């Protein structure tokens, strides 16, 4: 399994470096969009207004959103591309089962996604003057967000296997993701707060805002809830993927596009 992970790591990094203009373009576009929104918000608020930790909270929501979008297009969009190029069937001819191959692949490409996102985060912090905290404990809620993100990515990957064309769906879905990751549900009260606990990634994103934007300590109780939430979505995503694999093989549509 380690061998497969290292092979996947090599494959993804070679492709990234060989076609680095695509990645650089992605970073420039992503940061430009945020900067445009930032300038608009500054114009509405008027001169002299300080955003304070609210800007920081928005930065975290935005960068998390871009990370989740990368993960989603990596898995669901990747499946669609491989069906087109004919490599998808070769992946299913591996003695490792397909869910395992795709999971190892996702973890290997996470190193790329995180590198790109750290670049985006640093550029945004520089151009907006946002100052974030980076306590080591941020890794814990970050893992819960990743679990939810991979769960959704595998669920979307299931649709990619069954339908082959998911690009339009991904386009619409990204707005729902923006809601999940950037709305500060941690400030909600009452039934809205309870509802937010069931949404994917939202609790983890809220905890990250607490730690990195507001400088608060990690709330272990809330983290446990976020972890359970992440694990449920992750398991659900893998289950759906496994079902979709079986159904696609039954329909004989694995390589078809």
């Amino acid at each position, binding site marked *: 399994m380690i061998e497969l992970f290292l092979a996947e790591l090599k494959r993804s990094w070679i492709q990234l470096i060989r076609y680095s203009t695509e990645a650089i373009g992605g970073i420039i576009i992503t940061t430009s969009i945020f900067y445009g929104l930032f300038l608009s918000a500054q114009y509405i608020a008027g001169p002299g207004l300080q955003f304070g930790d609210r800007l920081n909270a928005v930065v975290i929501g935005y960068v998390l959103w871009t990370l989740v979008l990368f993960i989603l297009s990596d898995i669901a969009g990747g499946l669609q591309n491989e069906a087109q190029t*004919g*490599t998808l*069937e070769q*992946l299913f*001819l*591996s003695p490792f089962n397909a869910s395992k191959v795709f999971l190892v692949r996702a973890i290997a490409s996470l190193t790329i996604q995180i590198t790109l996102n750290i670049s985006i985060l640093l550029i945004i912090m520089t151009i907006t003057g946002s100052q974030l905290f980076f306590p080591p404990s941020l890794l814990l809620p970050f893992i819960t967000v990743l679990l939810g993100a991979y769960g959704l990515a595998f669920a979307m990957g299931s649709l990619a296997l069954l339908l082959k064309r998911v690009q339009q769906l991904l386009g619409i879905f990204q707005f729902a993701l923006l809601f999940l990751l950037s709305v500060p549900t941690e400030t909600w009260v009452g039934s809205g707060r309870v509802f937010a606990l069931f949404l994917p990634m939202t609790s983890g994103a809220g905890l990250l805002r607490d730690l990195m934007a507001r400088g608060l300590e990690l709330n272990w109780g809330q983290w446990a809830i976020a972890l359970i939430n992440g694990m449920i979505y992750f398991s659900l995503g893998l289950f759906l993927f496994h079902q979709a694999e079986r159904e696609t093989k039954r329909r004989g549509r694995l390589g078809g596009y």
Partner: protein
Amino acid sequence: MRVLEAQHLRKTYRYQGKLLEAVQDVSLKLSIGEVLAFLGPNGAGKTTTIKMIAGLILPDQGWVNIAGRNPHRDSRALRSLGAVLEGNRNLYWRLTPQENLEYFGVLRGLTRRTAHQRGRELLERFGLADKRRSTVQTLSRGMQQKLAIAVALIHNPQLLLLDEPTLGLDVEATQTVKQLIREIAAEGRAILLTTHQLDIAEELSDRVAIIQTGKIVIEEPTSELIRQFSGTAYTIELEHPLDAEKVSKVQELGGTLQGQLIYVRESDELYSILDVLRPLPLVKIYREQATLTDIFLKLVRENPLD
């Protein structure tokens, strides 16, 4: 030793509300060192059968056994299987040949070190060593196809499935791929080959199975099939035209003339006609032999689409 056994495979698809019986009770067997040409018109069920064998399509009924394991139940069966499906689109175009071989080697269960070593050997053997560092997208279609076959062999499988391996290749590349297939079979691997180029199937295969509307209509050793469908007629080619006297004698004996060619229907008549022709110079005498193309067309026409 038997490498592949597929028994009573069936697959039905639902298409626009109708049931389409793509494969109906297909059974195939293949032993080490044997090449089976699996032929049929478009839509006859060849690719569905191959993909059921590879574990990529779930059969409604029947089972597959590759080197003692069912690929639908035990993924270790895939260690004994290599496949090139649908032309040359089985590779990562942004990677080099060496990188593709290493990646797919690990994916098939090799260590990275072994995959690297095997990859280098295969590139040397397939004449691709000088293209080791070029990305796949810059290679010619023939080279891409050779690489796809090399990738399918990286884990040294006993069974190789080749679906249309010469599709879209030029004459030279077709010859190269044909030679490679011959060499791979000579190493003792079992090869299941589908192709529309029947001369290639005739040249390479030990056995032929023809499928039509999901059913196998014939399965025979290639030489036996050709013998069965070949006639008993002979053709004699003369160096010079015959004079009138000899023409009438040949015709009396049952021969038919057309220019410098004499057609003889039965072998009994052959020697009497040769006596008449003695001592005229002959160019050649040959028995009419059916080609796989003739046989294929005859069988497909006799078993029309349902």
